[in-house]
């Protein structure tokens, strides 16, 4: 079963008077429970592709289907709800809300959805354990290292138990040890929880944590292949 389907996807931007095509005629799909790494040099359109998959941006043409729902047919509010419940985001610079504590950051999607937080106490505890952040649950992001902040961002992405997690250079801002630990964590999340992960990365090493690899160059798919562990 497919989690994500991309069909004839184009994206272009206006830069001054020029029209720059960032993504050109992309077609691929991501199977449920897989871990896709999208690789390519700077400016090849990796992040743009990820934002299109997450419904943060609109394609110039073509389709993105998330769990068989065409994003172009969804209203903004529906896309917000989808980001809240069906998709988790992890960014390179963690993007935590600085004035909220670790546990509040993690529970933010629940707060936005108006969920009873008490019902999620167990889930929170579990995620804090998985990410190794139980001892830091009351502190604010500024008191954490980069690796720790990224763990909080991962927990936040998982709180609603979404099927898909989109990772935008998730270890691009971390030292190699922390990066390695985080990638291992993603691997666990993919394997043990059965989540579909899509990461964009510069790093060949972190790309290898995935189950498949999509190589992009100048907005086009150069290759898509399975990674054999």
């Amino acid at each position, binding site marked *: 079963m497919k989690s994500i389907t991309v069909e004839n996807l184009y994206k272009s931007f206006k830069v001054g008077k020029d029209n720059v095509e960032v993504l050109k005629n992309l077609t691929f799909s991501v199977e449920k429970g897989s871990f896709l790494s999208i690789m390519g040099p700077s400016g090849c359109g990796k992040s743009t592709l990820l*934002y299109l998959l997450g419904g943060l941006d609109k394609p110039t043409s073509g389709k993105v289907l998330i769990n068989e729902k065409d994003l172009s047919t969804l209203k903004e509010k529906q896309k917000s709800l989808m980001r809240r419940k069906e998709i988790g985001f992890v*960014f390179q610079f963690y*993007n935590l809300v600085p004035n909220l504590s670790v546990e509040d950051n993690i529970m933010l999607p629940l707060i*936005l959805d108006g969920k009873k937080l008490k019902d999620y106490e167990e889930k929170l505890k579990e995620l804090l354990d998985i990410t190794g952040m139980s001892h830091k649950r009351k502190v604010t992001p500024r008191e954490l290292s980069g690796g720790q902040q990224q763990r909080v961002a991962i927990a936040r992405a998982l709180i609603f138990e979404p099927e898909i997690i989109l990772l935008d250079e998730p270890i691009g801002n971390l030292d190699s040890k922390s990066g390695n630990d985080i990638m291992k964590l993603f691997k666990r999340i993919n394997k043990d929880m059965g989540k579909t992960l899509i990461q964009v990365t510069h790093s060949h090493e972190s790309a290898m944590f995935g189950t498949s690899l999509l190589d992009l160059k100048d907005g086009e798919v150069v290759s898509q292949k399975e990674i054999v562990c």
Partner: protein
Amino acid sequence: MKVFIKYILKSMLEKKARFFLLIFAIAMSSGLFIGSMGAIDVATGSFSKTILQGFEEKEVLITTMDGDVFYNTNSIIEKGVKDLLPVLLGNAVMDNEDLTNITIHGRETKYINKDNIIEGNFWDSFKGKEAIISKRISEELNLHMGDSINIIFNGKKETLKVVGVNSNHGLFYSDQKGDFTIIAPYDFMEEMYGVNNKYNLLLANKTEDTLKESIEIFNNANKDFKASELFDEEAIENQIGQLTTYFYLMLTIVVLMSGVIIYGSFKLTITERLPVIGTFFSQGATRGNVKAILYLENILYGGIGGILGVATGMGLLYLVNYSVSPLKEYGIIESFAFNIWYGVFGLIFALILSIISCTIPILGSDGLQVKDIILNHVNTTTELGWWRFILGSIILIAVVILNLLKVTLLIELSPILLIISLIALLLVYPKIIDLFTNFLFSRLKGTLKITGLALNNIKTSKALLGNITLIIISILAIVIINSVGFSVKEAVTGAYTDINFDISITNFKGGDHTLREMLIAKLKEEPDIDGMSIHEVYVANGKVEDNNAIIIGVEPKKYREYNQYLSLKDEVYEEVYNRFENSSIKNVILSESMAKKLNVGEGDLLNMEINGLNKEFTVAGLIDGKLYYSGGFILMDSKDLKDDFKFLTSNEIFLNTTKNPEEVKKDIEKVVKEFGGSISTFEESKKINLEGNQQFINVLSIFSLMAIVIGALGAINNMLISFIQRKKELAVLSSIGMTSRQRGAMLTLESLFCVVWSMVITIPYCYLVTSILSKLTKLIGLPLDINFNIKTMPLFFMAATIMILLATIPVLLNNRKLSIIHEIKYE
């Protein structure tokens, strides 16, 4: 350097709205500063000009030593004075329904200024029943050459023929439809009064450089006459001085608000410039270079704002001048010369204000790392430390305790107490919000949802906290004005309920006490008037050991019954009043504040000077003067005032009626007007007094209006600052599922919480402020018990809510355009 200046100028104009706001805030502040400095000069000048014009530029008043109303001038030795102007002055009314007041100047032709005559050729024949009127009155009352004016003078009806029309200058300067002046031939007035070659008003000019010198020379040379200043400029300045204190208080408020706006705007400016600043750093600029650029930018703001501030100040002074111009309804506005030094000080003030306000954000940039600056990783949220809270709490507690103490020094310190308590409050409140929010958010975040996030954002956004500061100060400005106004009204109403009279007769012109005595005799004949209640109150300006003092001449047997406001019937004053009423020695009662001013107590001797005459009096005792004559006066037996000081002009006649005062007023109005007096009932007097005070409050309201305008603009600015600073945060929230509507709701709720917090903080503080204000009013000689009228708060809450919601609209429009990717992308 050239490139830096070019950069600064371009950057300043890039954000036009902020440029306008900064310039506006600085211009308003320096304009108010100039207005506060100049108001006293302008108002005094305007009052003085009206008085001087009315007396045809004369400066000296000459009266007889024996207090005779009519006198001849033959024995005057003209030393120290020149250009004597003898007049036979009288008060009459027009024989019409309104009984319009007319002041008659009986003059010989040589004392009439020929240059100002517009119509008429009466020069050699100005005799008998003739009159010269002003152009204004000629037009207003449609009186022309040859027309008749029917008057009632000294109880007789007379008809005067208009033989001349004068320009609206000099004597006629203050002419109004309901009260005007005419010049009549001297012989007519001579006949009316039944005197021969005598006058009852004598004015002159000084010969020496100073008025004091001239008066001294004249008084040394003359035994039968004495000279005095025609009007007391110092007294006028003192009176206006009360207003200036409030001007300065309001100025402080506006300056604080401007400071918050400049601080907030500049903080944002620095945040926005960080990447460019980073570029400067990377190219070898030192922190000193960067600071110099930032200061230079602010000096430019200060300079432009200051120049506009000078224009604003001039406009404000014109407004003050306009509002105090007595003849504005005739289009006559006093001209005033703008003191160039005020402009210079205003400009310096603008520069200092902008430099000080931007210093904190500029110094704050010291702690930023160059790498963070280049990457724009600077944190815009803030952790609220304890030291401000502790420092502010200590100051606030100290102010509260000091305010409870009854130490006189605190009255002198009250303006400082007011300002430091406000600063302390601004230091304390963010932590209170922080603590409360933490408590609430940790327990109710699941229930509160977006509301909880909005609540939480306030404690960490300096811009939103800045908005609370602006709202607090705006509300405070309004509360101060409102409470003063409310308390003045309460005090006046309260005082009037304790003053026992039904009708007052006032506004006697000239010095003819015999006329007044005749009037009193007539009043006693009226069946509906309680004859026993009729009494006169005299008000004289005197001196005690070089201190100015108001002396109230009263009839001791009747005054206690009349003035129950002073509680003279109370047991505590029993002994004092008995001494005052019955003692064989000459004594006076002093109000406590007057006693303090003169540094005297019960039993002390006072050397009093009134009308140029000196006499010693004993202090019978002290009483609480409350608000009566601003709390500072001396009560004297009017008999002593007349006998010892030849002070014969009573200020007011009071009486009680045996039937409805309105009806009695109608019955006796004509008689009173014929004798040159104005009549009003108790209710009318109260209304006039309240209206007078309302004017004072209206002038002050201009400031609170300014505070609201600056507050509203500042709020819009802070909202946008807060939004711009948190764009990335909002984008993050959106990336994890916050809808655009939820974002809008959160921003709106933040605004509303700003108002709610401002109210919660301001209300208890207002009790302290009004208590300190009560002390401040003592300091400025208008001792009022200022009460905080909490009932007005719901109205202010609504006004503040509307203001803040309007300020949120630009933010909501920006929110709709927020690009999530633009904010969170890092490539």
